[in-house]
């Protein structure tokens, strides 16, 4: 079975982002999606710290630390991009103006609940950032994650056990083994990697998958 690498996952998500889409890529794995958007396809990347039209990382030595993304990495601005303040930025998000938000996750439920901000471990210092706004704001929220934990447990679950980020907010889950649509009607398999059947996925996840 051809488990996708993280870069292959990013490339697969990038396929589903059409020209003209307004997109927020979450910190971590989702950031890689930008690397697989063809240059000729105009996609508008938003970063919640106040820029739209985010370009790639600058060359080493060219960083401007007042031009950063939400992960606090130096970035560039495309011609035609612009800056705005934090309230306008989150209005953009909460107001449903973004087409797609791509997030990482600890767990996603078959109904589309998302857990990605807090492990809930005693003693852990919680930090939420923009996760809860991102989760519920865009027209569609995609999640990218490995399907299984290192211990082999499914991160696509009947009900999240980690603290929730948002309820019923995820529409699609991209994993290293399969892509799922999730929502009120439960989880449906969209595609699987070569050599993996729907029954294999049911066995791995323990879920009823349509």
């Amino acid at each position, binding site marked *: 079975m051809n488990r996708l690498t993280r870069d292959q996952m990013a490339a697969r998500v990038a396929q589903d982002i059409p020209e*003209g889409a307004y997109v927020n890529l979450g910190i971590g794995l989702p950031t890689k999606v930008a690397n697989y958007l063809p240059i000729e396809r105009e996609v508008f990347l938003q970063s919640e710290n106040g820029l739209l039209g985010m370009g790639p990382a600058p060359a080493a030595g060219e960083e401007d630390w007042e031009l950063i993304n939400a992960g606090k990495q130096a970035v560039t601005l495309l011609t035609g991009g612009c800056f705005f303040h934090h309230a306008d930025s989150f209005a*953009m998000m*909460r107001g449903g103006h973004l087409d797609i938000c791509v997030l990482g996750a600890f767990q996603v439920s078959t109904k589309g609940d998302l857990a990605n901000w807090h492990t809930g471990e005693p003693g852990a210092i919680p930090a939420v950032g923009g996760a809860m706004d991102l989760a519920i704001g865009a027209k569609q929220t995609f999640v990218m994650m490995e399907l299984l934990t290192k211990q082999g447990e499914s991160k696509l679950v009947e009900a999240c056990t980690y603290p929730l980020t948002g309820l019923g907010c995820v529409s699609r889950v991209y994993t290293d083994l399969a892509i799922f649509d999730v929502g009120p009607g439960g989880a449906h398999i969209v595609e699987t990697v070569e050599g993996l059947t729907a029954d294999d996925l049911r066995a791995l996840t323990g879920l009823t998958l349509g």
Partner: protein
Amino acid sequence: MIDKTVGNVEEAVAGISDGAAVMIGGFGTAGMPDELIDALIARGVGDLTIINNNAGNGETGVAALIKAGRVRKIICSFPRQTDSHHFDTAYRAGRIELELVPQGNLAARIQAAGAGLGAIFTPTGFGTLLAEGKETRNIDGRDHVLEYPIHADFALIKAHKGDRWGNLVYRKTARNFGPIMAMAAKTTIAQVAEVVPLGALDPETVVTPGIFVQRLVEIGAPQSEKRS
């Protein structure tokens, strides 16, 4: 390549249909997108709900739309003016419904729609006729009225310059409701005096980021400027 500019005002107002809720920018005639409104009249749709600060001035813009009998309801702060005769006539004849909103609540409710808020508690209007029947609450010793967002299907606005991604800058007090209406409507249509190449607008000074604009059309010399 994304190009939100359209060739003429007819294309700009395509898709607006009977019964639509349409925000129209402008404070009096400053910022009024006259050419887009003329195109809307020419399109022949009616039964519209219009959201504007006023209810038309003289013979152009919103006044012309009302005169043409296309407006079922208007949500505004200041309908009665010396030159609002078309509204006055329609209102007295019972042909137009009026929802009167204090100007700051109008702006806040439009902004709340654009920002995805469910409702806001505002102190403006508490204890007045315009808050009758509305939920109120004392918060930190001050009385407030609960007001809901105003959404729209379309916004017609006038800006100064724009680019093919829909980024806009405005001119002087013609800015007024443009930026917040652009955020609150499903489809925002801007008429601009000039479409400039991508990159010609300074990224620090863009007032309306392109994400809030779906179509723009260049109108070289708008009526409102000719009038001046």
